[in-house]
């Protein structure tokens, strides 16, 4: 795969290949990205389905396909996939034990110019309430095909949410199911999820901290985290979605320690009512390199400022 392509394009190509290779793989769309699947739909009209602008139906159809023994991949914009059709995700997939791979685009503030209607930084937190979903957050387009194949490959044991973004790290890392140490340090461990890795590395370049990279956030690698926590007990989570989404799992993983401190960086809850670019929104949420650096240095100096209420 060329790193010149964005995650969505790479995903459509990889999913189309899977439909070619495996007679049980199906794709369900609700207009979004239908152009990228036109060739696959022409080859496999019975397994590449565009239901129109009907997100509830899209998810329910995936549930029905799974009940018929197929392996559905469901794809649209994050707020329409996870929020608009949430009861369908909860019941027609989760409660039925019908498995699917949900693939979103438009992560957090990717659609900064489009406004709140096209943003769902709450997606992982919300999906986290449905038992049995793995969550994969690639940080680079080249990581997408492997994660997609892996997700389709484990459909017999569970569903996956694959969260694509236009934000990307400078380079891809080899796929690894748990935390992957990128650099080692002594004062804290900083967990960088998906596309947070490059800004985190820039932010802490001269700080004595460990940086661990995660694409798989559910299941959460609590054991890996516990093993990386330094004597200071300082832990930073840098997540590209709602701040604190994984805090309860980090806390649970560290309950055996006599003491730890946790800083949760991520997207704030306040309604910003601002347009502009994704990088402008990253700065507003303190998720650009400068903001992360400010938060981490304050945290290490024990000035525990919260960014939960940006």
């Amino acid at each position, binding site marked *: 795969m060329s790193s010149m392509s964005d995650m969505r394009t790479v995903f459509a190509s990889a999913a189309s290949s899977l439909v070619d290779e495996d007679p049980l793989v199906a794709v369900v769309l609700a207009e979004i990205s239908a152009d990228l699947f036109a060739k696959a739909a022409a080859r496999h009209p019975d397994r590449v389905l565009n239901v129109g602008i*009907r997100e509830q139906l899209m998810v*329910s159809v995936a549930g*029905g396909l799974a*009940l*018929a023994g*197929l392996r559905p991949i469901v794809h649209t914009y994050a707020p329409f996939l996870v929020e608009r059709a949430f009861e*369908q995700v909860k019941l027609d997939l989760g409660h039925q034990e019908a498995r699917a791979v949900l693939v979103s685009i438009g992560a957090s503030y990717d659609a900064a110019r489009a406004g709140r209607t096209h943003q769902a930084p709450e997606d992982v937190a919300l999906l986290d309430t449905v038992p049995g979903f793995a969550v994969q957050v690639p940080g680079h387009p080249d990581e997408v095909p492997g994660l997609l194949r892996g997700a389709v490959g484990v459909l017999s044991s569970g569903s996956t949410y694959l969260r694509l973004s236009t934000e990307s790290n400078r380079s891809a890392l080899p796929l690894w199911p748990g935390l992957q140490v990128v650099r080692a340090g002594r004062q804290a461990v900083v967990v960088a999820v998906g596309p947070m890795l490059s800004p985190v590395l820039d932010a802490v370049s001269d700080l004595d901290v460990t940086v661990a990279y995660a694409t798989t956030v559910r299941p959460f690698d609590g054991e890996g985290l516990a093993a990386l926590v330094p004597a200071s007990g300082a832990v930073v989570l840098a997540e590209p979605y709602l701040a604190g989404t994984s805090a309860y799992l980090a806390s649970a993983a560290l309950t055996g320690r006599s003491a730890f401190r946790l800083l949760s960086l991520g997207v704030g809850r306040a309604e910003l009512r601002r347009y502009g670019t994704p990088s402008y929104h990253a700065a507003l949420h303190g998720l650009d390199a400068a903001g992360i650096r400010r938060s981490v240095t304050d945290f290490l100096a024990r000035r525990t400022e919260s960014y939960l209420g940006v």
Partner: protein
Amino acid sequence: MRSYAELAGLMTVMTGDEKHGPSATSTLDVLWVLYDRVLRVGPDRLDDPGRDRFLLSKGHGPVAYYAVLAAKGFIPESWLTGFGSAGSPLGYHPDRNLIPGVEIASGSLGHGLPVGVGLAHGLLARGLVTPRVFVLVGDAELDEGSNNEAIVYAGAVGLPNLMVVAVDNQSSSYGWGPGGIEAHFAVSGWSATRVSGRDHGGLASALGAPGDRPRLVVAAVEGKS
């Protein structure tokens, strides 16, 4: 195997009531005709890919459903006694993961038909052209907008293996206007008909005929009040 006449007794085991009002039995005749004369299903072929799929979308009031499942040998009659109690697989809404022969867990309205559309697609994609998907909905359940997404789409793509039975006890607050429920399906390309929900021969004949497009059978029964 039990007869139709014995269903009332099985229902009494669950409810404790000797008599069952129209709202408890609105689906009883449709369910009996489906399981007795139409569906190619059985307790001996629960995982047969070629079986018909019956989705009780209207999961409310499942007493008649459980009675029919017991009468047809899908579940032991001894299960009926504990209906709704801790440890019983039979809840006030059915769960496919707990009850043999139950194809979907239902309760929240407006899910069965959209799932049925996916199931119908999936069977055809697997080359299974014989089995049909039957979805039982209530007339008030069709208030849920998710059904409309499925009705328009299924009509447009023309799934011939999809059958909806709408049990109409006139319980939708705003009704369906002139032409009834069937007009709303017909305008989307479904074949649609109305029969008495108490006429076993009429139901069997209406439900038994597959066509070249999705089909709606409105089974009219007495109103709730």
